[in-house]
């Protein structure tokens, strides 16, 4: 089966073309600056050849059209005809309580995704644009929606409810949802595979540390808590997001700076996080360089970042009554040995004996970070959300065909 996986953002589309018989990525790329000046598509084939093609991309439908055109082209293509495409999988950020798993796209499903737009006004609309564009360009190809939130729908109520008037929960669906579901799912399953253990016997803490970052507590293969909430703002300190914040602070700022909820939203999403604290950048590499050059605020930012993650690891271990495996993934999780060290040192009380040598310089590879006798295993598992989306898509489409 050949499956296209799409991840549509507000001004970009990431895509991968999978051959499911081998799980090979035949082609992948990204269309950037959709609807803006200077748009382009960067395309890469399985043989490693890369190309960047400039051109005006007005909207998501045009972007997907060009992507399909490139995939079929003589010069850069990987398929000869669109008949070769068996299905398309879409990453949809917010599925609220309507979606506990991936779903075959129907008009009803599209309607339900639209209803979730209120909860994710920045993310769901472009996801939906991708679905509708594919429907119009490849009307006969089955589509599946894979939701970032679905993996966390197994959380018990004591983990997902907020202590606000209950009526507000029933009226608006205000509760913790959590994101990066496909990533947390992939790395936890893969880790169990690597360790040769049954995931049902494991208590795992997965740390997806990228530009957006979240931690999940996974017991017996099921998510039982996660750091992001109703929106991706909650939890860890991120590139430009606050993470956990006393709500009183936000209310105070709104009053004293005389700003409305719209500007307050921009404040906590784009002006805060590592950028807000350090004043250097939202990029971890730039902050680490500044810290090495003794920039005090950069050093403070890094301390805060690591400390917040440590607290979550501690609290999730308590939540699960112990921990067996701690996994690092995402841009920083996979490529930040200094961060991993700062987070994992002095965790012997938890049963983790961190192996500094094994950790040093390791980037982008599956690697064990703990000493051989350590009760708790720490490891890096590079994420592959697209593969999860492709696998889910395949499973659902095959199931549908059986019926």
């Amino acid at each position, binding site marked *: 089966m050949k499956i296209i996986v799409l991840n549509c953002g507000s001004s970009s589309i990431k895509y991968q073309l999978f051959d499911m018989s081998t799980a090979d990525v035949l082609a992948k790329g990204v269309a950037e600056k959709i*609807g803006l*000046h200077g748009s382009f598509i960067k395309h890469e084939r399985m043989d490693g050849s890369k190309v960047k093609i400039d*051109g*005006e991309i007005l909207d998501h439908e045009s972007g997907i059209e060009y992507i399909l*055109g490139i995939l079929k*082209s003589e010069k850069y293509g990987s398929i000869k005809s669109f008949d070769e495409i068996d299905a398309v999988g879409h990453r949809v950020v917010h599925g609220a309580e309507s979606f506990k798993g991936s779903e075959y796209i129907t008009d009803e499903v599209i309607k339900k995704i639209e209803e979730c737009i209120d909860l994710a006004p920045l993310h769901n609309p472009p996801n939906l644009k991708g679905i509708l564009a594919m429907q119009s360009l490849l009307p006969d190809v089955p589509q599946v929606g894979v939701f970032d939130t679905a993996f966390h729908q197994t959380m018990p109520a004591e983990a997902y409810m907020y202590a606000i008037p209950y009526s507000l929960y029933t009226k608006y669906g205000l509760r913790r949802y959590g994101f990066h579901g496909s990533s947390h799912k992939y790395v936890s399953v893969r880790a169990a595979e690597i360790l040769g253990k049954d995931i049902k016997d494991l208590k795992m803490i997965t740390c997806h540390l990228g530009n957006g970052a979240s931690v999940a507590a996974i017991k017996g293969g099921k998510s039982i808590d996660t750091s992001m909430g109703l929106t991706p703002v909650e939890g860890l300190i991120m590139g430009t997001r606050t993470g956990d914040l006393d709500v009183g602070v936000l209310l105070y700022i709104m009053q004293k700076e005389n*700003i409305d909820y*719209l500007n307050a939203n*921009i404040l906590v999403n784009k*002006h805060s996080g590592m950028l807000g604290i350090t004043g250097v950048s939202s990029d971890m590499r730039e902050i680490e360089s500044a810290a090495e050059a003794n920039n005090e605020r950069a050093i403070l930012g890094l301390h805060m970042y690591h400390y917040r993650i440590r607290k979550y690891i501690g609290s999730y271990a308590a939540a699960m009554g112990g921990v067996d495996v701690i996994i690092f993934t995402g841009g920083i999780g996979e490529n930040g040995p200094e961060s991993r060290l700062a987070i994992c040192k002095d965790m012997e009380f938890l049963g983790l004996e961190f192996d500094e040598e094994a950790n040093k310089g390791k980037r982008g590879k599956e690697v064990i970070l703990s000493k051989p006798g350590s009760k708790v295993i720490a490891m890096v598992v590079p994420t592959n959300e697209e593969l999860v989306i492709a696998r889910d898509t395949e499973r659902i489409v095959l199931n549908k065909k059986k019926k």
Partner: protein
Amino acid sequence: MSETLDDFALSKRIQKKGSIQKVGIIGCGSMGQEITRTVAQHGMDAVFIEISEEKIKEVFAQINEHLDEVINQWGLTVGEKRIILSHIKGSIDYNDIRDADLVVESINSQKPGTNIEMRKDIFRKIEEVIPDDVVITSNNSTLMISEIASVLRHPERAVGLHFISPTSSIKIVEVIRGIETNDASFDFVMKFSKMIEKQAIIINESPGHISSRLIVTLINESCEILMEGVGTVQSIDTTMKMGYGLLFGPFEMADRIGLDNLLKWMDNLYAEFGLQKFKASPIIKRLVRAGYHGYKTGKGFYKYEHGKIISQAITATEFN
């Protein structure tokens, strides 16, 4: 010849018909700037036409200042400001809008009474450079689009599109069909309104639409109350602001509109309707003649410093 994405289009078609990529804006005073910023903020290119290179520099300085202020209020990031500015160009040459998908006229004529003629002149100039079916809109508040459009060879492409300041927070626009306006042009403007995230209020053409007509009567009546000595500038404003939830009291609103603009509106509406309620209050005439034009000149019904009210500029007893 280097390849572009167009080489990979599935069906060889050029840009989708009806898409709005570039908007021409004639006149970049305070209202023109607000419209320019709105267009650029929504990812479209904005090309504004002004009367001199000096004025163009001034416009960019003012837009820069405004965006910096929004950043200070946490409403924008530095990166986003850069993107917005990259969408804005200024020119003194009408030829630079010949490929615009939409042209918005938003001049602010200085001499009262020449307003309609100036706008007709500009419409003619626009029509000389753009294709026959490109829509032209006018932002004016009290004149009739049917009259302005009458000088066009193709009046059916003219639509009234009235913005209210400050456009960054006012979520409506008034859309007015002229007598000749065709469905395609009207629908196009409705689509544009959606693209800039404004709710379109459909107006059956009448001087002052809804907004200007109502605000003028409110301000005039406030002046009456002031002249009778019933209250002060401050007390009248506070009553309406806190009593009825208005964003600004009537006098502060008048200052923000600009008393010279307001006077023009009142003169036009009085000329159209002949009704006393639209006749400009003597207070307003007096302030305008004395150069008290409101917020933008630092003096109107209030005195302003660094954009904040510091005191009333006049008291009721002057008119007893």
